[in-house]
């Protein structure tokens, strides 16, 4: 029976949330305007309407999760994003796989942040919450799913499958419920995909807070006071957004097979740019607090970071990127609505700041080269230019769409080699940032003139030159650009470490945020330089095949073909592919796939053999996602097996084919990253023509290329899965086939019943052969074997060494710690001021 209740509940809650968001905005507006007598009642009313909004928003999320959790495939959302076989933690990923779910996540975070703001503010509550409620109204409208005169407002996640599709089955049976959903995109079946989107959306959501304070400040004519409460949130936003980006990068590194953590894909760029701008905004805001300059710059940057988040949403969610991105986003026809959203807030922000512009205090005094304001400003500018360089080419598809909407033709495409294109700029910006953070920190903590600067910088400079020289020599960094980067990165690490140690001696840990974050930055730059600049593909094909075209010989083949059991030299390693494996519930290691036979039930198999102490022959075992195959690749050095990697692939018919994920061996100083790019498909083999062999027991012969021993035959009393009757004769031939260091037993059976012959052939998928005991010739003492060949199992694999990638990850963590310390410090400042009754 179709359950329409939960969908109706969800849809109703969406409408309630939308209306209550508008009511909240109106109520806070009244509260803001009201006189002292009425203020209290408006305040209560505003808060109540926000709570109604909050509860209904949470109910939206609850309804959608209920639909997914209970496998209600009558709903389009559950049908297209989930399936029966999915474990609970991946159901959470299903929740935000679709755009509607992602918007709900965003709405949810805004509600949580709204709670915080209401309860941490006194005077700022009204103006800030007006902006908040308006943003919420826009976001909720994205999932409203209401059609008003041909104009679709939002796309509801609560529509039934029968309404979403015109599948003929629904004409015959409107109450039809599919047995199973099409499943979650296997690339998203990863623990990082459970936590990366919420983090990123919290980052998205939190960029609203500094913006809301700013708008509040502009409206209430508190042109500079908004900075103090906004600052901790701006740092929070930059930290969470940064963490979300890093998690996404890490997810890409461990699940996607493009061979790295960052690909300069438009979707990545679209979040990277607002982050850069937010970081720039933090710096100018801190400068303002210290010395009352850079207020106008801060205003511009805060607006820009929020608008850029909206723009990122517009780019990624409107389908405009189409052919330009590897990420899949369905066009839900919301681009118009997203565009209005973007334009509305852009215009409001521009209008309000333009109106206030001449009242905004700014210092006329020219900043000295020896002042921190000067260096911070240069740093912010560098960050701004960095963002500009990325957002410009990323917007090419949007530019094309715009030209076309005016009837023109634009055939511009994003740069063909994105990595090379962006790197050539970002590398130099990165170097500039590293140098600025090193020098800037000294200006920050003490008054500087020419001489003091020289004294302060000399020691860190010498130390870092010595360390970089060591790094360059030991790690063989011979590219001049990378040498400069190493020096710059080391310099910022050393200089900031010096500052850090001084601060720790003199005062508390509270002030350490800046230097920690900058040390992290230096490490990240060095880590990125090594892991990307010196990443080396070691799976170069040395097969020595000559190609028909001479030009083809010149190309490096960056993949190797590994036949099962056949060793292959790959740089320092000898690698051997050992066959497919499955992950079984409750067993910490992979289990060879050949000893498992799947049953009719989802994720269930019967063991064909005993396996260690884990299960016995004939046991039923539960497989963790049966579509997943893990390819066992053993790595040998000097004839000794060192380790084994198991890159994964998944065949998922519903999602359209094969998807593969890498596996890496993590060393202290490098990662060995491997993935399978192509593999044998033995589901439905096309057997080649019959080949017959007449052999006597004890004889040795060749099946295909394999040395085979015929050890003799045996008369059987019983056979698995087959009932022998009185008078039946069953004979099993024992063949031993050698394939490199592996010996396989193949035992085809021959049964005679009432002069009728039955043959039980044996298929070995790994060797790609089918062996049948075709006849027995007693007078010649010979057995006739029929052999059909298909193809030996193989994988095509790529292996890349990524040196010092851990430096990047450690640097990232240090940077995040730095941000956290800074948030604590700035929020503490805000609280102290608020409690004095000043804010």
């Amino acid at each position: 029976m179709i359950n329409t209740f939960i969908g109706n509940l969800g849809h109703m809650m969406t409408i309630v949330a939308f209306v209550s968001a508008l009511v909240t905005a109106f109520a806070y507006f009244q509260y803001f305007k009201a006189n002292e007598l009425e203020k209290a009642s408006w305040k209560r009313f505003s808060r109540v309407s926000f709570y109604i909004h909050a509860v209904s928003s949470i109910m939206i999320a609850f309804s959608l999760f209920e639909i997914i959790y209970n496998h209600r495939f009558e709903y389009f959302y559950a049908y297209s994003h989930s399936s029966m076989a999915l474990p609970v933690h991946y159901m959470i990923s299903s929740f935000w796989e679709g755009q509607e779910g992602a918007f709900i996540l965003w709405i949810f975070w805004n509600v949580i942040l709204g709670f915080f703001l209401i309860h941490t503010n006194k005077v700022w509550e009204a103006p800030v919450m007006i902006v908040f409620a308006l943003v919420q109204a826009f976001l909720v409208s994205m999932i409203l799913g209401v059609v008003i005169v041909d104009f679709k407002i939002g796309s509801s996640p609560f529509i039934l499958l029968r309404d979403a599709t015109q599948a003929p089955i629904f004409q015959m049976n409107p109450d039809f419920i599919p047995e199973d959903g099409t499943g979650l995109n296997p690339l998203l079946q990863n623990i990082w995909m459970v936590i990366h989107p919420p983090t990123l959306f919290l980052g998205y959501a939190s960029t609203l807070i500094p913006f809301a304070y700013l708008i509040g400040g502009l409206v209430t004519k508190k042109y500079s006071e908004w900075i103090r409460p906004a600052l901790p949130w701006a740092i929070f936003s930059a930290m969470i957004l940064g963490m979300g980006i890093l998690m996404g990068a890490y997810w890409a590194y461990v699940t996607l097979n493009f061979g790295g953590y960052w690909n300069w894909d438009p979707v990545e760029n679209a979040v990277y740019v607002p982050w850069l701008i937010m970081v720039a905004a933090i710096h100018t805001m801190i400068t303002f607090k210290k010395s009352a300059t850079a207020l106008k710059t801060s205003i511009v940057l805060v607006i820009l970071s929020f608008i850029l988040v909206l723009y990122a949403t517009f780019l990624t969610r409107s389908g405009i990127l189409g052919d330009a991105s590897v990420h899949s986003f369905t066009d839900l026809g919301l681009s118009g609505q997203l565009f209005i959203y973007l334009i509305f807030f852009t215009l409001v922000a521009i209008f309000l700041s333009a109106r206030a512009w001449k009242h905004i205090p700014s210092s006329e005094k020219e900043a000295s080269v020896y002042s921190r304001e000067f260096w911070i400003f240069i740093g912010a500018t560098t960050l701004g230019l960095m963002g500009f360089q990325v957002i410009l080419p990323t917007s090419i598809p949007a530019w094309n769409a715009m030209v076309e909407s005016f009837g023109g033709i634009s055939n511009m495409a994003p740069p063909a080699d994105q990595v090379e294109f962006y790197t050539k700029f970002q590398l130099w910006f990165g170097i500039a940032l590293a140098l600025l953070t090193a020098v800037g920190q000294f200006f920050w903590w003490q008054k500087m003139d020419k001489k003091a600067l020289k004294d302060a910088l000399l020691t860190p400079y010498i130390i870092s030159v010595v360390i970089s020289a060591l790094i360059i020599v030991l790690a063989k960094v011979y590219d001049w650009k990378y040498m400069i980067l190493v020096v710059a990165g080391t310099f910022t690490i050393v200089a900031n470490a010096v500052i850090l140690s001084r601060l720790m001696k003199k005062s508390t840990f509270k002030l350490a945020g800046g230097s920690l974050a900058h040390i992290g930055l230096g490490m990240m730059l060095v880590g990125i330089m090594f892991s990307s600049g010196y990443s080396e593909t070691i799976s170069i094909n040395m097969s020595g095949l000559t190609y028909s075209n001479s030009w083809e010989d010149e190309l490096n083949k960056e993949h190797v073909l590994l036949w099962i059991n056949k060793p292959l030299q790959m740089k320092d390693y000898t690698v051997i592919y050992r066959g497919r494996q499955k992950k079984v519930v409750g067993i910490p290691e992979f289990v060879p796939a050949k000893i498992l036979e799947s049953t009719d039930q989802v994720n269930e198999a019967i063991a064909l053999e005993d396996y260690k102490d884990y299960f016995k022959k004939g046991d039923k075992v539960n497989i963790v996602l049966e579509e997943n195959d893990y390819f066992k690749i053993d790595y040998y050095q000097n004839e000794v097996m060192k380790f084994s990697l198991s890159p994964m692939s998944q065949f998922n018919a519903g999602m359209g084919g094969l998807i593969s994920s890498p596996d890496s061996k993590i060393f202290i100083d490098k990662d060995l990253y491997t993935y399978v790019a192509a593999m044998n498909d033995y589901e439905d083999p096309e057997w080649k023509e019959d080949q017959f062999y007449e052999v006597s027991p004890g004889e040795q012969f060749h099946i295909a290329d394999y040395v085979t021993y015929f050890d003799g035959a045996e008369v059987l009393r019983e056979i698995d899965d087959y009932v022998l009757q009185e008078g039946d004769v069953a004979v099993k031939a024992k063949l031993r086939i050698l394939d490199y260091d592996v010996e396989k037993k193949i035992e085809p059976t021959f049964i005679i019943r009432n002069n009728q012959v039955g043959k039980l052939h044996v298929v070995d998928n790994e060797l790609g052969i089918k062996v049948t005991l075709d006849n027995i010739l007693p007078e010649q003492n010979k057995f006739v074997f029929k052999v059909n060949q298909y193809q030996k199992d193989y994988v095509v694999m790529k292996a890349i060494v990524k040196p010092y990638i851990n430096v990047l990850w450690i640097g990232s963590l240090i940077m995040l710690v730095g941000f956290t310390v800074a948030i604590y410090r700035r929020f503490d400042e805000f609280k102290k001021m608020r409690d004095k009754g000043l804010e």
Partner: protein
Amino acid sequence: MKKGHIIGIGIIAIAIVIIMTSIGDASSYETFDTAWEMKEDGQDKAIHVVGQLKKDTAGEVTGLNVREDKTSFTFVLVDNDGTEQEVFYNEPVPADFTRSESVVVIGSYKNKDIFIADKILMKCPSKYQETEVQAAGM
């Protein structure tokens, strides 16, 4: 001249460099005919061509030729003008390549007979209205 002005000019100069390189390095969507003209004019820049895989009357993909070591292959792409072109890709055949609805190849002509793709983007049909875009590694 004030320091502020120098910095301002510096920023504008860098911004102009960024804009110019973005335009200069931007690729373009071409057909095989225009791509070949560009090659003949001596432009080796990688460009985008959108097309479909060549299919026989039964709707099966034809012209797919995988190299013996399975690490590279050639295929025939028909661009939006109907021009057929053999394309070489120095990677294993991406999964569900033959199922793709349209293919974007990014690369350039080696000679008149062969177009070398550095990168392939595929658009694959999925059930119902779902569409999925997938890239086949770099």
